């Protein structure tokens, strides 16, 4: 297994950019908080150190397993070409619209069929042992990237709440706040965004909750402060800005499945042999490359996950 650190992109190219972005978010945050203080008198928020923590930048992490040595997609593309319907249905707009998105205070509630339901503060979660996972990301639209995520296995969070044996699925919910998410003012999708995994998928070592990428905290437009990454599934399964994780007995209905059940199934495993009803999934365009490349079964993670679906008809369970 090849484990590689982000050697493709020189530090000189990344660091100034991220510092620049953080400085901007710091200033913007300060301006917004000052405004709020004048209007709503939230003075405590300003002097509380937690408010400022998000602007303090680099994460401590170790190299994790399953990393690919493929060329990593530049930060500029990861942060300026992505789907985030809570901000906009346009892939170029979230970068600008998410600039002032506030990720503090932020908690993640873990509840449902567990013996010890808990509410985790985001800054507590950032202190979990973090790993870098360089994963391929395949969007259902036919493009892909290689992203050096930083996060921790979802399993290590679920282990802390003592799962009830009745729990068969995990249901994730994004933040619902149309004031902060302009896209939620329109009913393009049913808000809040909901996603789900089967228990064995959720506990799989490949499945992580990401809190950063390229050695920094997650950019707002990529799902800050915490998002799901399941590299063998299409990108839309990677729910962003998670506020609730609920353990349930019955299979949750994902937002995209609700929107178009014949196009987006619950599993949504990357599969070149099962086309989207409106376009082929046989090939993909890796961002930054000219020619399309063949899409791999389970996005190339078949060795790790194919056994989860042994005996299942993947055409039916798309």
């Amino acid at each position, binding site marked *: 297994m090849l484990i590689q650190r982000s050697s493709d992109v020189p530090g000189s190219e990344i660091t100034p950019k991220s510092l620049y972005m953080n400085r901007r978010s710091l200033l913007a945050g300060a301006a917004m908080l000052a405004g709020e203080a004048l209007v709503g008198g939230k003075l405590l928020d300003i002097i509380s150190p937690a408010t400022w923590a998000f602007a303090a930048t680099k994460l401590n992490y170790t190299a994790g397993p399953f990393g690919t040595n493929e060329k990593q997609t530049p930060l500029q*593309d990861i942060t300026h070409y992505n789907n985030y319907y809570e901000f906009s*249905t346009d*892939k170029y707009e979230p970068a600008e619209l998410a600039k002032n998105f506030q990720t503090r205070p932020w908690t993640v509630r873990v509840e449902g069929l567990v013996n010890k339901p808990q509410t985790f503060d985001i800054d507590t979660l950032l202190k979990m042992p973090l790993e870098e996972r360089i994963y391929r990301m395949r969007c259902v*639209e036919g493009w892909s990237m290689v992203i050096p995520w930083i996060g921790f296995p979802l399993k290590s969070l679920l282990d802390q709440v003592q799962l009830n044996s009745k729990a068969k699925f995990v249901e994730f919910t994004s933040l619902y706040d149309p004031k902060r998410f302009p896209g939620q003012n329109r009913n393009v999708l049913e808000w809040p965004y909901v996603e789900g995994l089967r228990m064995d998928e959720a506990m799989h070592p490949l499945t992580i909750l990401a809190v950063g990428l390229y050695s920094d905290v997650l950019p707002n437009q990529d799902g800050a402060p915490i998002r799901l990454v399941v590299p063998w599934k299409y990108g839309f399964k990677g729910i962003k800005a998670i506020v609730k994780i609920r353990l349930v007995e019955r299979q949750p209905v994902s937002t995209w499945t609700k929107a178009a059940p014949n196009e987006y199934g619950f599993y949504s495993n990357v599969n070149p042999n099962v086309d989207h009803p409106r*376009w*082929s999934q046989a090939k993909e365009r890796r961002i930054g490359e*000219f020619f*399309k490349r063949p899409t791999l079964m389970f996005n190339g993670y078949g060795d790790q996950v194919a056994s989860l679906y042994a005996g299942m008809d993947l055409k039916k369970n798309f």
Partner: protein
Amino acid sequence: MKPKYLKPIVFLACLLPLGRLGWKALNSALGANPIQVITFSTGTWTLTFLLTTLSITPLRKLTKLYWLIQYRRMLGLFAFFYGCLHFLTYVWLDQFFDLHSIYKDVWKRPFITAGFTAFVLMIPLAVTSTQWAIRKLGKRWQALHRLIYISAVAGVVHYIWLVKKDVRTPVIYAIVLGTLLLYRIVVLLLGASPSVVPLRVRRSPMSGD
């Protein structure tokens, strides 16, 4: 009155979308997925030119600027021009001449079938756009060129079907097209001729009709 020198100005203006794309390409300003941007831009401009072409007849009737008819052919040919660029982008940059994959796409994917139909129907219109063909075909010319209605409908359907969820923009195209087609239906029901054969204009180009 018809402004002088308008024709070359309109002609150059019609090339602006292409110029803008070229300029962005040279400055690496096409973003993370340049081929998608080129495909999208040439596609929407094809539709825009088709709708502009279709709006000439209602416009000249409503505004009594009868000389507008002289721009219909040019606009229609620009629709075909951008349609060619769009098709070429798909065949060359997107599929890289993978004929098998293109064949499957055209037959299996309704949105590509619709787009392909819209493009193919524009070919006879472009071919018969010469003065010679108009004279040669006589009355049949107008009948043939009614294919533009089908082409435009197929083009808008192509756009609506390819969008994942947010159909706001394609629906705007659909509303404009619907209005332009409705105008013709109303005129037809009222018993008047919805358009004027270009021959008449040709005979007396300066008369202002």
